[in-house]
């Protein structure tokens, strides 16, 4: 946050000795672990999509309803959503300042949550209906 302008204190002294948020390591670790997962699951995803391109509706349904593609697709969705939520957060923190930053961060979290839920819901629906 930009804080009040015109004060005698510099931005540095306003934050000095407040300490860190204590969440940096966990976030760095998470984006690395999901990154490794996304490399493997992403390659599987491309392979799966190449399998689907020549299929009709029923073929796509039948393929995605199998447990292995369904579970790996769910894993890719979860890992991907977590990864992109953290990635977009770092973009927002780099380029957006002041009150819009908070709104952008909230929008990012909500967008990722809704998108993830929609993808998980649809994948499970294909499997179970």
């Amino acid at each position, binding site marked *: 946050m930009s804080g009040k302008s015109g004060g005698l204190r510099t931005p540095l002294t306003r934050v000095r000795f407040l300490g860190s948020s204590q969440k940096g390591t966990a976030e760095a670790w998470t984006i*690395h672990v999901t*990154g490794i997962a996304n490399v493997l699951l992403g390659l599987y995803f491309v392979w799966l999509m*190449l399998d689907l391109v020549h299929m009709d*509706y029923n073929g*796509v349904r039948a393929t995605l309803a199998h447990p292995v593609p369904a579970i790996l697709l769910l894993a890719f969705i979860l890992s*991907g959503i977590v990864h992109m939520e953290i990635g977009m957060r770092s973009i927002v923190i780099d380029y957006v300042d002041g009150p819009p930053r908070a709104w952008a961060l909230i929008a990012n979290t909500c967008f990722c949550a809704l998108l993830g839920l929609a993808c998980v819901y*649809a994948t499970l629906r*294909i499997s179970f209906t």
Partner: protein
Amino acid sequence: MASTEAARSGPRPRPLSPHLQIYKITITMVMSILHRITGFGLYVGVLLLAWFLIAASTDAAAFGWFSAFIGSFIGQLVLFGFTWALFNHLLGGIRHFVWDAGYGLEDPIRDQMAWGTAIGGIALTLITWAIGYAVR
């Protein structure tokens, strides 16, 4: 100028570090920027995956709408861009893992890895699309 007014109304602006426009463009710099841009693109592109899954889970008519879009010129262009973004970001990520392990930061290797990411991303995209059209 505005600086005299700023001097009166408050502290003068803090000095800023130089940004992109002042540096000579290098391949590592371009790939760093592309890593972020492709990450952003994939973020938006997941909407396409959501549409695909929701359409497939709904019925044949909904899936038909999706198929019509993805089969159109615009759809193919977007999907091609998504494929490239995926491979570019994937290879860029692997490059980050190599750096994290403590390798690939020295002079000739860092440029070679950056070029490898750029060329590899395009190559994997073209191979994927070649396979995609071959199996059709």
